């Protein structure tokens, strides 16, 4: 089924919770097992000079809370000797894992997905990317507001890489993302707003809060809000691994 869903929740917490439940259900419905891995893709923007910070972020916010085998966690290594080889190897790992089942990402205020900045090719693959000023400014808060410390380059999955995923989920919250969301779904596919590429993806879901919809047409918002009873069937009932499946 080819579909674009726009799921609108009242606030950041509710949007986060809805997304989490959705992912949970998707994984369980997939019935993963010993030889059947569910491949979850997350944006990997590894700042080149700070190998610790992204690992710390992923550890503290995700890995330490789950029981994943460390060998199944793949993060691009910004300190690799040959960065292009590192990126190619990453693409290969995705292929070997059978492709990404679900890619989860957010967008920047400039409409980028992962670090695919405005002007990125819509068929790009994993590569080294120079960051746009907007992104550098947004990242400054992780470096005590010191712009000189913020990395200017990052390794990132490409738009093409994400388009290959079987399903894509984009999380968009906050008023500062509203214009990007408008460009992403109400205007055309455009490499200046790379997330718009997903209009051509067979299965995309955008999860956002009220504030993120501020630049959309009232008609669009009303239409998708009217579909919430259908959307909510995706998260209720919330399945559990303990059920006899």
């Amino acid at each position: 089924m080819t579909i674009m869903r726009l799921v609108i929740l009242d606030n950041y917490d509710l949007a986060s919770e809805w997304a989490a439940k959705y992912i949970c259900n998707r994984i369980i419905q997939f019935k993963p097992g010993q030889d059947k891995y569910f491949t979850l893709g997350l944006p990997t923007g590894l700042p080149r000079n700070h190998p610790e910070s992204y690992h710390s972020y992923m550890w503290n916010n995700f890995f330490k809370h789950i029981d994943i085998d460390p060998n199944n966690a793949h993060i691009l290594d910004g300190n690799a000797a040959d960065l292009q080889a590192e990126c190619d190897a990453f693409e290969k790992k995705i292929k070997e894992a059978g492709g990404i089942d679900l890619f989860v990402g957010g967008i920047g205020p400039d409409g980028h997905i992962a670090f695919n900045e405005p002007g990125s090719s819509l068929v790009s693959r994993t590569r080294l990317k120079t960051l746009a000023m907007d992104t550098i400014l947004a990242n400054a808060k992780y470096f005590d507001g010191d712009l000189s410390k913020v990395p200017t380059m990052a390794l990132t999955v490409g738009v093409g890489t994400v388009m290959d995923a079987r399903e894509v989920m984009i999380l968009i919250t906050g008023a500062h993302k509203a214009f990007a969301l408008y460009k992403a779904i109400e205007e055309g596919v455009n490499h200046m707003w790379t997330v718009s590429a997903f209009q051509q993806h067979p299965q995309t879901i955008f999860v956002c809060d009220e504030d993120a919809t501020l630049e959309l047409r009232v008609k669009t918002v009303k239409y998708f809000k009217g579909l919430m009873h259908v959307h909510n069937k995706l998260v209720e009932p919330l399945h559990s691994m303990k059920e006899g499946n």
Partner: protein
Amino acid sequence: MRGGQGTAGARVLRFTNCRILRGGALLREDLWVRGGRVLDPEKLFFEERRVADELRDCGGCILAPGFIDVQINGGFGVDFSQAADDVGSGVDLVAQRILAHGVTAFCPTLVTSPPEVYQKVLPQIPVKPGGPHGAGVLGVHLEGPFISREKRGAHPEDHLRSFEARAFQDVLATYGPLDNVCMVTLAPELSRSPEVIRALTARGIRVSLGHSVADLRAAEEAVQSGATFITHLFNAMLPFHHRDPGIVGLLTSDRLPPGHHIFYGMISDGIHTNPAALRIAHRAHPQGLVLVTDAVPALGLGNGRHTLGQQEVEVDGLTAYVAGTRTLCGSISPMDVCVRHFLQASGCNLESALEAASLHPAQLLGLEKHKGTLDFGADAVILYKSHPTPVSWPALDARGVRVPHWRPHPSPWLRHRLCGAG
């Protein structure tokens, strides 16, 4: 060789469903241990790509670093200041029994004694790591004999000494070799004390000020010479006076070497210090507060007469007096009771109370990299503070100790009054 991450081959233990004391806060985090050291799980995950070998559910308990007691004169009938032939077994007994109070490392303390006693006893108390057998010995604390006559408290007058004649040579002549010594309490008003302090500090021995009539000026000079601790604040020193705060004034002195602050011991048994005084000290300088027991051999024994150094003491309830007088001579409250009392009396949070008995003494002794914390790389010496309903589980790997079930108790302060010099 144990590196920061413990021996690579050893089993990895993961304590979960707990709150750990780290960085001054009780965090909802798992504690990972390998080879007796606290492990960084992030490094384990990304660099070694390993998970835990064993998971232990702590049932919501608090995990805290083991307590460190830097002033304890004996206990359970053992008197460290007695010149015995087998001091070692007495130290071992105390080390084993104080584990139940949560103390996992301590400084056996010798009170003012004649030189023969020091020279016989000191060589028998080497520094020793702790384990399930007992708390570790961090070094001996020598309290006296270079102290003030007027403020000797329970110390025997006959054996007081000065180092006026030959300064550090007098010190060596009295104690003998200082290899096993980690701290010396002295009175800074004694002539030539700055030299002596410098000589001791140069050997890595902590110098503490106590049993003294020094004014603030002399105390500050002592700190500038290298002293870093105050022995049982308020007790056995001049009372605080607003025009000469005396040793107590060190808590807020602006004449200390830059970047340094003073540590101060407090006996928070509800008897040696009025809770209001405890609060004043704590509020003035919370980072320096070190809880000590100053426990005497009567600790853990019942009411009646027992020996301390060259003197007899009388135990009555939670109070110990010099026999036949109303002079206090040390406490018989175990460390966990002191921590609990401090928590109640000061109104501070649990994190501060726990740090006062673990992190601060470790910092005083310069051991905070490995002791008194649950930071990565530290020795994994852990106390559990159990729920209202105690949960039991198998003994910890090597060094874990179970603190007896904590519950609020009415402070003895309500029932006893401070009598005599203290």
